[in-house]
């Protein structure tokens, strides 16, 4: 009798282990999908067409030697880097030894001289040559031309990727862009230049002869529609099958539960609302990732509550949080400043504000703070950027006399007063009271 029981228990435990393992495996898989540049099938439809176009264009360059230039534009987080990385990886896989990629970033390579140096450095790395730090711009340019020519003669394609392309275009001479694009139209090169930018007018920034050399081929990355997002979620939850029966059962279960959850009105509305603020591939991936982080490993299935937490997590309200956290004295000072603004006082400084604050004291029973104390609170506000100095003039002057500006609006102060638990009621009245008057 006992024996049978034990066997059943062991089996049960084993099953539990199996299930836990399945949950872990599923979570790991989903996280990987979400974080590490998911597979081509897990792209949003717009990105998929862009991926195809980019792949076609670059394959064309590799096989037929037609040099091109191209610009990938779209708002931040819409999959530009993701698609580009996928395409480059695919090319390197299908044409090994026939593509070399040079990557530059406008934020990292702040001027043309160091960008050119970086190109030479990456080329040296790729082909195991010795790089010289001391080479001048002209020498590096010459080196670049030679390597590109040599590559073309050996059926190798150079692909230049310029991330944050607009920053390269904002340099005074644009000599890097001119030279790279000029290289594209020389007969002895087989290369492609791919600019990535989040500025829609990136190609308008080019100087006229640089623009003339640019092919004007643009790939536009658009933010997804809600339907696209849900279909992406569906595809993401589709776990791959394998022989293990536990896994089989679990994955089917998982998908079913997930699709039920996604069908629910409340989840639909929540996602809709979340996306109505800002919409991008990045955001829909983020939302899901946060939701998965909240997943309860015991149940192993996704639920609407997790989406709620995730959405709240991803909607930060920094100003409001600061306002609900500040001390009473700081609140008083803010309200005092607000009152000054409401009376259309053009310019004010700490002394004026403190005077206004004193008037609050006259009215009431509130704690009274010294000027020293108030100054400390004032500094605190400055640190938190709730107020700033009006201009940089009078830097040497005393803190008290430099003119300041209030960076929070009435609406936000109201919200802050409401939310701040330590806020005395008199302060709320005071804010409205004399403004009306």
């Amino acid at each position, binding site marked *: 009798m006992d024996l049978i029981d034990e066997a059943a228990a062991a089996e049960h435990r084993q099953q539990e282990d199996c299930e836990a393992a399945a949950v872990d495996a599923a979570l790991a898989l989903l996280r990987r999908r979400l974080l590490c540049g998911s597979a081509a099938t897990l792209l949003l439809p717009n990105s998929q067409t862009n991926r195809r176009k980019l792949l076609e264009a670059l394959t064309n360059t590799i096989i037929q030697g037609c040099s091109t230039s191209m610009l990938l534009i779209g708002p931040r987080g819409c999959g530009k880097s993701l698609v580009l990385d996928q395409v480059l990886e695919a090319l390197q896989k299908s044409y090994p030894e026939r593509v070399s990629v040079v990557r530059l970033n406008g934020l990292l390579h702040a001027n043309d001289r160091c960008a050119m140096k970086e190109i030479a450095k990456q080329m040296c790395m790729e082909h195991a040559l010795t790089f010289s730090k001391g080479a001048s711009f002209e020498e590096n340019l010459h080196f670049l031309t030679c390597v590109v020519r040599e590559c073309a003669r050996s059926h190798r394609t150079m692909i230049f990727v310029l991330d944050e392309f607009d920053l390269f275009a904002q340099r005074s001479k*644009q000599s890097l862009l001119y030279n790279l694009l000029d290289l594209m139209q020389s007969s002895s090169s087989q290369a492609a230049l791919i600019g990535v930018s989040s500025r829609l007018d990136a190609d308008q920034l080019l100087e006229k002869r640089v623009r003339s050399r640019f092919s004007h081929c643009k790939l536009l990355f658009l933010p997804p529609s809600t339907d696209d997002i849900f279909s992406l979620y569906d595809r993401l939850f589709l776990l791959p099958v394998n022989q293990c029966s536990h896994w089989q059962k679990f994955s089917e279960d998982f998908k079913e539960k997930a699709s039920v959850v996604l069908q629910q009105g409340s989840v639909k509305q929540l996602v809709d609302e979340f996306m109505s603020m800002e919409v991008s591939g990045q955001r829909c991936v983020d939302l899901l990732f946060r939701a998965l982080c909240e997943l309860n490993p015991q149940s192993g299935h996704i639920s609407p509550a997790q989406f709620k937490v995730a959405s709240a997590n991803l909607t930060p309200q920094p100003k409001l949080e600061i306002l609900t956290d500040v001390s009473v004295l700081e609140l008083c000072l803010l309200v005092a400043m607000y009152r000054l603004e409401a009376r259309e006082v053009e310019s004010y400084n700490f002394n004026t504000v403190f005077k206004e604050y004193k008037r609050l004291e006259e009215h009431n029973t509130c704690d009274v703070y010294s000027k020293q104390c108030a100054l400390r609170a004032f500094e605190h506000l400055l640190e938190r950027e709730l107020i700033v100095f009006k201009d940089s003039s009078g830097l040497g002057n005393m803190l008290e006399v430099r003119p300041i500006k209030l960076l929070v609006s009435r609406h936000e102060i109201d919200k802050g007063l409401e939310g701040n638990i330590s806020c005395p009621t008199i302060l709320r009245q005071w804010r409205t009271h004399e403004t009306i008057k």
Partner: protein
Amino acid sequence: MRGSQKRKRQYFGRVRLDGVEFKVGDDVYLKRIDAGKEESDEEVEDCVVCRRAGGGTMIECDICLGGFHLKCLDPPLKAVPAGDWACLYCEEGEGRNKRKRPTRRSIKRHRTARERLLASELWAARIDRLWKEPDSSYWFEGPWYIIPEETAMGRQPHNGRREVFRTNHIDTNEMESILRHCYVMEPGAFQKASNEGDDVFFCEYEYDAQWHTFRRIANIDQNDLALSNDGNSEGDWSGDNTEEHEVKSSTYRKHKKQKKVIKEVPIRRKKYSIAAKHANSHSRIGGLEGLWAKSIPSDVRRSQTEFEKAKHALLLSSIPGSLPCRETERKEIRSFLDDAVAAGTQCLGRCLYISGVPGTGKTATVLEVLRGLHKRVEDGELQPYRFIEINGLRLISPEHTYTMIHEALTGEHIGWKKALQKLDKRFSQIVSSSSVDGRPCILLVDELDLLVTRNQSVLYNIFDWPTRAHSRLIVIGIANTIDLPERLLPRIASRMGLQRISFSPYTHHQLQEIIHSRLCGIQAFDKLSVEFASRKVAAVSGDARRALELCRRAVELAEQRLSDLSSTTIKGCRHAKGLGASGKLIGMADVEAAILEMFQAPHMQIMKQSSKQAKIFLLAILHEQNRTGMAETSFEKVAIAHSLLCSTNNEQCPNWDTLLAIGCRLGACRLLLSEQGSQHRLQKLQLNFPSEDVSFALKDNKEVPWLAKYLC
């Protein structure tokens, strides 16, 4: 010791041996010493069918290289067909009724030199240098040719039957070992070659016997013109290349000594070391052999479709030998240069300023003229000159011009201040016109406007040197603005603006001609569509680059359209048949699509696709703008308007922090012009596009239909 020996060596441009002339650049068969008994070098090839040589035109099978009389074929052919041709034996090679190839007669057939080369019984090499040793034996030096079987990869399916590779291994051989001439051509010439006989081969690649790698042989046009500077010949320019030497065969025979021709099996040289040199810091860059391809990819040898040919022809890089539509300008530049070079010591103050908007063929035309000039020098018709090319955008600062010019003239790299001094001195002193330094020097300064400095000294110097009596400097400046000389100091303008050529933007007729001339012989474009494209470009800029790119894009779009179409037809529907031949060409629709892609700004699409709150935010700005009549507003005002819009239309209003984020995001993709987000309430905002565009994009929105009522 070696020096003295060298002095006795006599180099020749061409040598006549036994009545056959060999010159530098020729390709020859070499006898292989170890090849055993010599076969007579019977040249005639016999017909595979009748086994007889001569008697009627013969045709060669492209697969087995067998020769056939036209009349011996079944059915007989009247003329040599165009393109590849395969004989009956090869054509039906795999078929059931495989024809039996006539077996070789038992009598010993003479094999041709070509067959022996392809069987590795002969060798081939190129003559790079010819000389006579002090013992009056004749020698030459040059790279070997090898057949595909001799490479590390062995013969690949896509190697041609008559393909050979030039190795980068150079050897010295006695002229004695030469069998006779053979002809190794580049693929283009090989295609056209018809009656050079049996000893024709083509060579597209260079082979590195040590690394077992390949690379394409650069064709001559690609080598830049500047290479001619080095002046491989000192002294008088007339006639050093054409030195001829006649050798009486009898005297030569006397010295006949069997020297071994040893084709060295490439021994591994000591491991290639580039550590000694930094790859990127010397003007002569070495160590790039590692980049060569391990094998020749098979896909480069595919035959091209019409569309692919069109794409190639339209590439910016495939510059035609002679640019159409620039005849007058070309003539002017040519006569300017001819005059200047021919003027000799009288060459004084020769400056030419060329202006024109981008992509009108300025640089291309000048380079073309220079190529012509270069050729004439090589043919000995013109005095040699030196050529220096400088591009304002390739210099890190304008003063570097001096360094570059000095380096080009002397090969010495020094700082610009010192270079300026030296150049100044050099251009003022008398140099004998027979030395290299005394040759006229053509200085091409591209993107001249970049060299304008605060005190304009660089430009002043460049245009002042030609006016010095002994400089013999000829300057051609290229820039975009027509009135650049007028914008400069008068003393520069007076020197630079004397002779000018301005390249006007292309009209649509010209663009059409340019495109048609490039597409000559390629059936890809509908005639009207080319006209449409050129009209569009001519109306915008008259930029040839734009027109070519536009057409190329149209080809790509058409290619895609057709491939989509064929994939749908495979699925079952047959409506593609209806398109007929016209659908196979690039039509108006494709050009229109390309124009749309190229000229349409993307902001409308982004606005249409942006999130709901972002749209309301844009509307709020528009609203504020209309209310105040001023383009610029602040975040606070917009946020208030936004909340108002939301509350009157039963939308949930996001908090201000979110609104700020929305504004910054719109600012990041430049739908708005905005200040930094840290300005918060005081952040200044402004629409970056006309308000009509914004209201057009926001209208007819299914997601937030109420937007329409605020937009009229």
